[in-house]
């Protein structure tokens, strides 16, 4: 699908190579006792796309923040175009031609594209003249790099793909020669990601240098010339992309062999456990978030819901879990009909044999100021097993927590440690352990591996498969398409609150699902297969 060829001559193979765009030498950075960056060196040749890959917390973002002037390195030097430079503030970085596209866009939503672009470099104390000049410059940039955005559109009205273009335009407008993109595809559909990569390719052709931070191996292989791998604050490899493979990179990231594909046998579906009919949900502002959704999940199968984040998956999951109220429709768990719209709460749903791993582990899954053992009983605190008369049975709770920590490899295995002090992956394991150990008939799982490192992902995936094989029904919501595709037996795609279509795992490929995630129905998608891939712009 990504047919972009790496630039020729990348990696400094010429006899007299020009100075590298960016060179980092021996960078060290501590945050208190944490050694976030340990003696890091890397070279980014001019006119290349350089990937930086690593698990969460490996130090990628810290390194880039040092390069962009958010932090100062404790030691080490930065060379821009061969000259040693001191970058104290983002302003310094901007002046040296370094631009950054942040993971969370740094855009002012009620402003127009033009206002966003000129913010910080208005060219004079009055806007009028600067705006006219910027409009000209913008038209020029848009034509040169194929970045089509109307300068007078209000940013809040633009889809995320276009908002990202505005960010890129902002950096180019400030004269960036080197562009840092931090996890740029997290919020994009596969098609939007393709478009982004085409833009990056154009930038490379025009001589710009791009640094791409990601944890998605697929993207590294598709677009980069060179890749640097980080693990636990250290740079463990600097290689040319063509000389490596996904498996090798994954092994470098985690430090051991990783199974990228989930091994599982065919599903053996039994009776329906969850039945949802014509479910509708309207949010507080009166916007319809879930529209006439009907499906069922049977015992012994995993049903995945794919979709770009914000298309109603979260609301659907919460409505079934009982944490928000649906307006109309039917939900039945284990054959018991629930009175939709009448204040059924999460506790009532749990009584019916449902367990829920919520999408947002910090706000819904844990109380971060509680100790791990207290988090173990969240939602089940009235279970007689945890109570002794009027008081909680501390011993029983601690034992349960210790047992779960052992079974799910939570590190450090200390039931008295505050939840906030565990890493994201271990927090997630705590929640997964709590919910799975209730042995529910139906498990709702939202973003089970968001912000979780590859090792933990592998573990959680295997547990989910094991539960399925034990005859449980699992409903999985994830924005990671790879995850939905590899785990689910059937995949439902949601767009704008409605289910666009259903695909069996065997028939699922990225392209079909991607089109459906953009709201194009499967029948339309199949007719447009022969067309140009660029023809599906996210409007």
């Amino acid at each position, binding site marked *: 699908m990504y047919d972009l060829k790496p630039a020729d001559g990348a990696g400094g193979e010429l006899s007299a190579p020009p100075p590298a765009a960016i060179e980092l030498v021996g960078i060290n950075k501590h945050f208190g006792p944490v050694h976030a960056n340990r003696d890091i060196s890397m070279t980014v040749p001019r006119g290349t796309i350089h990937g930086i890959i690593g698990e969460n917390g490996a130090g990628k973002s810290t390194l880039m923040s040092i390069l962009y002037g958010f932090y100062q390195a404790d030691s080490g030097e930065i060379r821009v175009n061969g000259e040693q430079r001191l970058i104290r503030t983002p*302003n310094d970085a901007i002046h040296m031609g370094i631009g950054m596209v942040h993971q969370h866009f*740094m855009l*002012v939503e009620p402003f127009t594209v033009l*206002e966003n672009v*000129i913010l910080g470099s208005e060219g004079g*104390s*009055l806007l009028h003249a600067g705006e006219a000049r910027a409009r000209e410059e913008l038209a020029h940039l848009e034509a040169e790099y194929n970045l089509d955005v109307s300068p007078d559109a209000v940013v809040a009205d633009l889809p995320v793909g276009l908002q990202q273009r505005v960010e890129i335009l902002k950096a180019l407008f400030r004269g960036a020669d080197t562009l840092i993109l931090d996890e740029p595809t997290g919020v994009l559909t596969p098609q939007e990601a393709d478009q982004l990569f085409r833009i990056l390719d154009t930038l490379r052709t025009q001589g710009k240098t791009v640094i791409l931070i990601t944890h998605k191996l697929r993207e590294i292989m598709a677009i980069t010339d060179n890749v640097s791998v980080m693990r636990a604050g250290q740079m463990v490899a600097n290689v040319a992309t063509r000389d490596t493979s996904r498996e090798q990179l994954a092994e470098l990231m985690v430090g051991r062999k990783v199974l990228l594909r989930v091994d599982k046998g065919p599903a053996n579906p039994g009776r329906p456990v969850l039945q949802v009919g014509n479910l509708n949900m309207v949010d507080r502002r009166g916007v319809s978030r879930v529209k006439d959704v009907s499906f069922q999940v049977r015992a012994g199968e995993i049903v995945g819901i794919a979709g770009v984040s914000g298309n109603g998956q979260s609301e659907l999951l919460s409505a079934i879990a009982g944490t928000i109220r649906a307006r109309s429709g039917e939900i039945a768990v284990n054959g018991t009909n629930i009175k939709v719209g009448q204040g059924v709460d999460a506790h009532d749903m749990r009584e019916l044999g449902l367990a829920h791993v919520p999408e947002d582990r910090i706000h819904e899954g844990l109380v971060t100021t509680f100790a791990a053992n207290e988090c173990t009983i969240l939602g089940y605190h009235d279970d007689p097993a945890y109570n002794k008369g009027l008081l909680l049975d501390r011993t029983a709770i601690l034992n349960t927590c210790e047992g779960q920590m052992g079974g799910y490899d939570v590190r450090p295995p200390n039931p008295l440690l505050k939840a906030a002090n565990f890493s994201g992956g271990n927090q997630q394991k705590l929640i997964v352990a709590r919910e799975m150990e209730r042995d529910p008939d139906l498990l709702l799982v939202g973003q089970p591996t968001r912000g979780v490192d590859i090792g933990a992902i592998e573990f959680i995936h295997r547990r989910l498969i094991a539960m399925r094989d034990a005859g449980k029904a699992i409903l999985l919501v994830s924005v990671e398409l790879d995850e939905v595709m590899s785990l689910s037996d059937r995949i439902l795609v949601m767009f704008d609150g409605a289910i666009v279509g259903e695909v069996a795992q065997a028939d699922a490929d990225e392209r079909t699902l991607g089109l459906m995630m953009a709201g194009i129905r499967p029948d339309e998608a199949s007719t447009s297969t022969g067309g140009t891939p660029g023809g599906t712009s996210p409007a």
Partner: protein
Amino acid sequence: MEIFTLVVLLLDATLRVATPLILAALGGLFSERAGVVDIGLEGKMLGAAFAAAATASVTGSAWLGLCMGIGVSMTLAMIHAFACVTHRGDHVVSGVAINILVAGLTVTLGIAWFERGGQTPDLYNPDPYTGIELPGTAVTTEDAIRMVVDADPDDRLRTPRQVEQAIAGGDVEMAAQVEALTREPTPVIGWILGGVQDFANGFVDFVREERFTGITLPLADTVAHVPVIGLIYSELISGHNILVYFALLAVPITAWVVYRSRFGLRLRAVGENPAAVDTAGISVTWMRYKALMITGFLCGIAGTYLSTAHNASFVRDMTAGKGFLALAALIFAKWRPIPVLLACLLFGFLEAIEARLQGTPINLLGLTFTIPVQFIQALPYILTVVLLAGFIGKAIAPKAIGTPYVKER
């Protein structure tokens, strides 16, 4: 015609009452557009009102009073900024603290300094200045009488009225004295110099006044008798003090700064998404400090107006909720300058009506009754609640309002 006069007088009062609201609400606009909740408009106005009245009564200069009022208000704004921006404190707590602090401190200092139960001495403007005399200018009978009073050796004559009564009573000597001093202007040169002299004396009055008084715009007296336009010009447009004109001028200036200047773009951005401003290489902290300085400046003028223009002394708690009313107007106007003006005029109008209707019996359908004063006083607040509850649509505040900016890792 009677109704028309009443309406013009009502609008005239509206303008006078709305002035401090306009200034304070515009001040709040700068602060809140930059993302800092300012519930301390009230406190800043009150502090400025006290400082201005106290300074004016001690030094005899309303202008020094204005400077001191602005100074105190800006200091309070900087305290707010230090608490909310530098130390990331809660904006509402800091604002309330300033309100309480000022409410107590003004009364305490007032009692300690002036011993009038928290009130400052009344401000009087001196008699019109006549010290500049140019040759060849006209000396009217009035001028001559005043000169006689000034020149009286025994200091028995204190007012021009005494001289007039003496002449009417048949004091021939006095009449002759006045007659001798009276002079027709020398043609051309006398007329020109007469104009210069009047202007110069007027300017001295303007500079040395103890409280701000109305400025009569050119020709206001001349056209006063022209029907309709004359009344509108002489009553409604002319005759206000300089701070009223400043408040009206501040509205288009604010609109221009907020929407057309680099500062305004950054101000709006910092209230919506400070992270975007930070990554663009602009200091969020400094932007918010600058915005609060303007807030302090405008609230300072608003407070000064209350004690040295609208009234002639500081009275304890004299803002009486005007700061909160300004805040309501700001929200009502959805943080936009021109609607702020309209909202403040509406609230001012209600207050002007209140003064008119107080105790006036109303005859409706054969029933005569008086509207309770409390009801009319509550009208602006009732109106705000009712209108905000749905009639003007949702007031969407700047997105980052009230949240301290912390650089993310």
